[in-house]
């Protein structure tokens, strides 16, 4: 905490609660009044209008009610709520004024809300920011209804996750999802701005609510409950994932995005074995993914393939995985003697070699295999048996475009990869990997063949990436060298680290965020990557262990008792060690 912050808190003193409550009341009043004076915003931005932008400040203002009853962590929760309420309100007012053409278009309600949000923020910042003593997760009282209630909470959490995902995906960026709007209205469409503003507001609301829940300890309680019922959690998660296409009402674009997220997540889980468990920094991971994609593309029966064969996909997925795994062994065998940074450099080089080679195997500068920069395109739709993945379906009164078929295929692949990861991480092999990550020398002295196990992790990660790659080739229908750049490797790595190293939910959340946010920020055009980078820096600053860390890593970063061994180290330990 900065000195300025603490002197501000001293100045505001005990008035902070009153100020925050007053601001919150004003914000509530403002948020039920109309915000816009023109009809460009659906319903003039009354409460009936876009969700995140209006409901957000209202919900976050209601959090201030916590101040009336002192719950542990409530002050910090209100601080977070007031900050995000102000951000959302300010952003929305800016978007209304900007797309309307001036401040005149902003209605009185918005000004009341903005003033309220500012007062709320000033009050919130005056609250005591100290972290309450950590307590074990609370559980439901011991009653006959506790078990069904816990099941309901567990299943409900996956339903909420599905709803959030569906809603976030549903707020479409006009540049992508509604090409007609862009064509008709010209370069800047009002809809584009309202939609993008709405998505940002929704995102901020999500972060704000997550912070409030974390600071009140609700998330810890919930995760303790879901851990008690893993089967219910898994079943509910599977149902939610399977049900997703039914929520989209025939929207093929959304399903394609979801399928791509799934492929990305499967690759991230595979990379998590290499980085999260075995602790090997692999910066060229996308190359193995690319190997799988090219294998699938070449034997798909595409007319642009240089190998005019067609192998059924059931075999191709194993073939792609095996070839990628072979490359993993070829690369890993000589390089895994290297440690840390050196390995990172070699894998970085391999990633580039793969891309450049694929670029040059066009028959001119090298043997004809990959069609060079054009890649292998027009990959035909998958068929497994007599079932064609290119067919649309109509089921239970819902249109299921052909993308749904690919989505479900990818869910199956993802489940297989996740199962492999979870089972491995809790096994003799997984323990050996973690041991190597923790202390390679001690691991060797404990009887672990470190070279072999590192190679195993590396090859297994490559194999899973290859399998994911074969699916990806059929989802995007083309395999080009440009899809496998260093940026993609970096994004996968970022997904693993951001989500939380060594956990499956972490990799899933990380992959979803990293895929969705650049997709949704397209309206920022060139600024997109800048904003993206800022987001990554902020997450790493405030949550270095990742969004959903393993309990292990959480303690690694937030363990206050970690100094015990350092203090009791005896003097005179300078003797040489290997």
């Amino acid at each position, binding site marked *: 905490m900065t000195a300025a912050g603490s002197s501000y808190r001293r100045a505001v003193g005990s008035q902070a609660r009153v100020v925050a409550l007053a601001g919150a009341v004003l914000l509530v009043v403002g948020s039920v009044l109309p915000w816009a004076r023109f009809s460009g915003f659906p319903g003039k931005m009354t409460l009936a209008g876009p969700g995140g932008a209006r409901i957000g400040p209202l919900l976050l203002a209601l959090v201030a009610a916590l101040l009336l009853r002192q719950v542990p962590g409530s002050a910090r929760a209100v601080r977070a709520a007031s900050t995000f309420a102000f951000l959302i309100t300010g952003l929305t007012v800016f978007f209304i004024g900007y797309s309307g053409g001036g401040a005149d278009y902003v209605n009185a309600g918005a000004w009341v809300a903005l003033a309220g949000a500012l007062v709320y923020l000033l009050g919130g910042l005056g609250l005591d920011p100290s972290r309450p003593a950590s307590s074990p997760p609370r559980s439901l009282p011991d009653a006959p209804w506790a078990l069904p209630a816990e099941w309901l909470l567990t299943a409900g959490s996956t339903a909420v996750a599905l709803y959030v995902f569906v809603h976030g995906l549903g707020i479409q960026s006009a540049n992508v999802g509604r090409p007609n709007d862009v064509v008709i209205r010209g370069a800047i469409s009002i809809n584009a701005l309202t939609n993008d503003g709405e998505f940002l507001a929704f995102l901020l609301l999500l972060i704000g609510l997550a912070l409030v829940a974390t600071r009140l300890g609700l998330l810890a309680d919930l995760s303790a409950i879901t851990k008690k019922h893993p089967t219910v959690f898994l079943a509910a998660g599977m149902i939610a994932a399977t049900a997703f296409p039914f929520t989209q009402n025939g929207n093929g674009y959304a399903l394609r995005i979801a399928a791509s997220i799934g492929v990305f997540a499967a690759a991230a889980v595979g990379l998590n074995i290499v980085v999260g468990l075995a602790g090997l920094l692999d910066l060229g991971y996308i190359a193995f993914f690319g190997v799988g994609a090219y294998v699938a593309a070449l034997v798909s029966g595409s007319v642009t393939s240089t190998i005019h064969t067609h192998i059924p996909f059931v075999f191709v997925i194993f073939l792609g995985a095996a070839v990628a795994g072979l490359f993993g062994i070829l690369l890993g065998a000589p390089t895994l003697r290297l440690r840390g940074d050196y390995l990172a450099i070699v894998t970085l080089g391999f990633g580039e070699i793969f891309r450049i080679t694929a670029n040059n195997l066009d028959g001119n500068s090298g043997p004809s295999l990959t069609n060079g920069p054009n890649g292998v395109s027009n990959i035909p739709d998958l068929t497994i048996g007599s079932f064609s993945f290119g067919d649309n379906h109509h089921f239970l009164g819902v249109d299921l475009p052909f993308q749904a078929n690919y989505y479900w295929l990818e869910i199956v692949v993802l489940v297989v990869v996740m199962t492999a990861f979870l089972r491995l991480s809790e*096994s003799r*092999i997984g323990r050996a990997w973690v041991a190597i990550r923790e202390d390679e020398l001690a691991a*060797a002295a*404990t*009887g672990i063949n470190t070279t072999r196990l590192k190679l195993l992790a590396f090859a*297994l990660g490559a194999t899973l990436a290859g399998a994911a790659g074969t699916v990806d080739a059929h989802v995007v229908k083309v395999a080009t060298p440009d899809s496998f750049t260093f940026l993609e490797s970096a994004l996968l790595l970022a997904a693993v680290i951001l989500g939380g190293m060594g956990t499956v939910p972490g990799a899933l959340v990380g992959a979803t965020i990293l895929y969705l946010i650049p997709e949704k920020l397209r309206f920022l055009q060139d600024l997109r990557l800048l904003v993206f980078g800022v987001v990554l820096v902020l997450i790493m600053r405030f949550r270095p262990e990742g969004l959903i860390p393993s309990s292990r890593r959480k303690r690694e970063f937030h363990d206050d008792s970690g100094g015990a061994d350092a203090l009791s180290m005896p003097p005179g*330990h*300078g003797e040489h*060690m290997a």
Partner: protein
Amino acid sequence: MSVLEATSVTKRFGGLTAVKDVSLVVNEGEVVGLIGPNGAGKTTFFNCLTGMETPTAGSVLYKGSQLPGRPDLITKAGVARTFQNIRLFNNMTALENVMVGRHTRTKAGVLAAVGRGPRYHREERESEEKARELLTFVGLGRVGDELAKSLPYGDQRRLEIARALATEPGLLLLDEPTAGMNPNETAAARDLVRAVQGKGIAVVLIEHDMRFVFGLCDRVAVLVQGEKLLEGSPAEVQSDERVIAAYLGKPTEDTAGES
């Protein structure tokens, strides 16, 4: 029969000879002490025995056969060790640390781990049972689920011993097992080494606490500047003038308070 037979082990780092022509025989069930001033080459000698360093010359036989050149194979053959500056897997629980020690005595591979057949479950259950037994054996039965790094210093040393024992060694090398311990912990460590000896495991230990060494060891070897100065019973070593001059100091000084 001798458990360990190291003959003329020499280790040179460039111009420096850290270990010079050291021979040591350890018989079954023996506890042998290795003492000497800092920098005498004791740890380097241990490293040569466990494959962390390759000896420049000399041979090491374990139960009559040549030891392989890699740390993991040596551990598999039956020589386990602990480290002077504790090297636990800090972010694993105490139980997991010991279960890692079971690695060489178990077989489950990737397919077994993913497939999880009955044999996998049996092996995993046995590993956990053995690990819990060992934790109880070293007196850490209650802290199995704590992270290794959050254990007190003395417990970390015990945990390292439990992890080494999990590899089912015939010879255990302890590098300063009582460093940094208070008198109570040192007494407990002595009892633990005796208990290990009672399991039929031979022990070689490097130690600076002379009361500990002379009270526990069957034989003591003295290393000075990389060379073995003397080997004999605790009484012989304690009374040897060269040892007193090189290491123990004049009798008027406090000989037991070294650290």
